[in-house]
């Protein structure tokens, strides 16, 4: 894989990690007003999938959207401003953390209802197909969506109408040992392997280690070529392992912010996060891989991290300095 692309992957994943860490700080200071959801631990999936998309392809996401918007090219300042409900956010603060969308990036609307975006994504794909367009649609959603009826309705309809759509299911509840195996355990689903379900509808499925950015990129790029030639829809199960801070609706920064030096020695990560860092952290794993293959050295890695931190510091400042929206922003949108 080309080194420029590898460095792009690393920067994007780090950018997501640093933005998400900033969200926890914003929650502690009360800038985030209610519960919220983070993408820590899934950075490789969003980054790899989005890198395979064309700039004008459509993306749909969920309540766990921050990373997807950044991966599609979202400005961290506008993302953070939206997350804390400021006028400089992508939606002027009307959507907030649950609904970050960026119409100009092909993310027209983000539903925070589990499964809410799925039929809308199918509708966009339907419109593209009717107009014989080439734009693909990729819908990110979590394994919990497969507990909703709308998933089955949408899957059936998408397959009946052969829509140019990738169902990108992020199963973030898989143990490190199970990521490469056949099982995809989730405590609330009767199906033993979630990707068996779409196959019953005749939908081709693929399973990928969602902590491996290059594997996700290669898979999605291949599927998008087939989608554009009319072979869709497809279903991907991306398997990741839950970050220890990510239980419940109020994430905790277990082990503190990620120290890029853990890429040199993952065992140096603090107690609460050590095992996860060693086995399941996509950012640290990728940095370590690039070090191992000599794509970068430790100094270059520190420089990239410092650069991204600076960028996210500026983004956070932009968000905090952005004014609260005024009541006039409510007018004229009925």
């Amino acid at each position, binding site marked *: 894989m080309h080194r420029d692309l590898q460095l792009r992957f690393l920067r994007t994943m780090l950018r997501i990690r640093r933005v998400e860490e900033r969200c926890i700080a914003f929650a502690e200071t009360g800038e985030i007003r209610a519960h919220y959801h983070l993408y820590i631990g899934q950075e490789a999936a969003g980054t790899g999938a989005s890198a395979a998309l064309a700039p004008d392809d459509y993306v749909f996401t969920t309540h766990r959207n921050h990373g997807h918007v950044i991966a599609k090219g979202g400005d961290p300042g506008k993302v953070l401003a939206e997350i804390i409900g400021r006028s400089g956010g992508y939606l002027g603060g009307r959507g907030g953390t649950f609904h970050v969308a960026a119409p100009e990036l092909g993310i027209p609307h983000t539903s925070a209802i589990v499964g809410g975006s799925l*039929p809308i994504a199918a509708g966009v794909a339907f419109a593209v197909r009717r107009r014989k367009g080439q734009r693909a649609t990729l819908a990110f959603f979590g394994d919990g969506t497969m507990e909703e009826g709308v998933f089955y309705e949408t899957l059936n309809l998408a397959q009946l109408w052969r829509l140019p759509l990738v169902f990108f299911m992020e199963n973030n509840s898989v143990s490190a040992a199970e990521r490469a195996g056949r099982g995809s355990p989730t405590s609330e689903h009767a199906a033993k392997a979630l990707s068996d379900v779409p196959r019953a509808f005749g939908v081709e499925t693929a399973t990928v280690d969602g902590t491996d950015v290059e594997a996700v990129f290669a898979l999605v790029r291949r599927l998008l070529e087939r989608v554009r030639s009319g072979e869709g829809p497809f279903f991907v199960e991306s398997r990741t392992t839950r970050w220890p801070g990510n239980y419940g609706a109020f994430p905790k920064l277990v082990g503190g912010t990620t120290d890029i030096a853990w890429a040199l020695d993952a065992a140096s990560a603090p107690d609460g996060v050590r095992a996860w860092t060693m086995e399941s952290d996509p950012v640290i794993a990728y940095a370590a891989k690039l070090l191992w293959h000599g794509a970068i050295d430790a100094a270059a890695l520190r420089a990239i991290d410092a650069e991204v931190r600076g960028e996210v510091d500026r983004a956070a400042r932009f968000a905090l300095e952005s004014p609260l929206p005024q009541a006039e922003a409510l007018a004229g949108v009925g």
Partner: protein
Amino acid sequence: MSVEVRAPAATRTLKFAEALAEAVDEICAEDPRVVLIGARFTGHTPSAHVMEPVTRKHASRIVWPPISELAYCGVAVGAALAGLRPIVEMSTATFSYEAVPQIVNEAAVIAAMSGGRVRAPVVFHMLYGIRGGGGPQHSGSPQAWWWNSPGLQVAMPSSPADVKGLLRWAALRSEGPTVFMDHQRLMELEGPVPTGRHEIPFGQADVKRSGGDVTIVATSIQVSRALEAANRLAREDGIEVEVVDPRTLEPLDRATIFASVRKTGRVVVTDESHENAGVASGLAAIIAEECFDALRAPIRRVAIPPTPVPYAESLERALIPDTERLVAAVRALR
């Protein structure tokens, strides 16, 4: 925008169903962005067949979805986001209950969440009301639900001219989502329909009969019943009733309603939904708030008592807010 609001010189007499079918035909012919998801606009009514030539002529513009109201309403929303102008024909209005998440929690909020940058011009057409033998699950009148959901427009035509004019406007001009509710028993109603591209912008009430003694604010099929009641009251009691038809609940033409109420000082509001927090209740509250000083008697509601609609004709008849009940309500005001 150039629209013919008042009937021009030339009209023909059409049935409601014929005017509806003519509107669908013209809409498909005039705007290639229009796509029909389902097309049984005339349901199982005696006039169902009038749609047949239209669906034959525009077969390429129609998709017949699986029995998946939630998914296909979401598909319509997505298709609208991607630049099509979908009309969803849901048939019996109670089927829309399966799709409430997409209609109320997605379509309705998109424009508000994006500050009007993203819009979903989709029409959800449904046949509501006590059709005769529908029983508790096929006689529903959910108009108050939609009216209670900010971000949705609600159209309730009462005449052949209005169904054509309002549907053309919703499908071809509106930038927001519309719930378009036709009463199942209106399909046979005959009336004059202007020739040409007759359109009625939303938010324009129509005084269907002038009178100085009592105002009946009536929606949809209740307009026919109110006109019958008015004729009887004029003949038997010498009471001159003014019948005001809002035509759309959202946007609501308050000025026309208030002007009539201020003239007569006596008001009956009637709609074929349930009394509890129904459309009649909502209209009564608005009138009471704004015109209390002009009222010379309490506002009366004529709606369906809070009982699920039964199957047996004798029981069903007891619930219908018919001419008899309107006459009694007006007499009770004196």
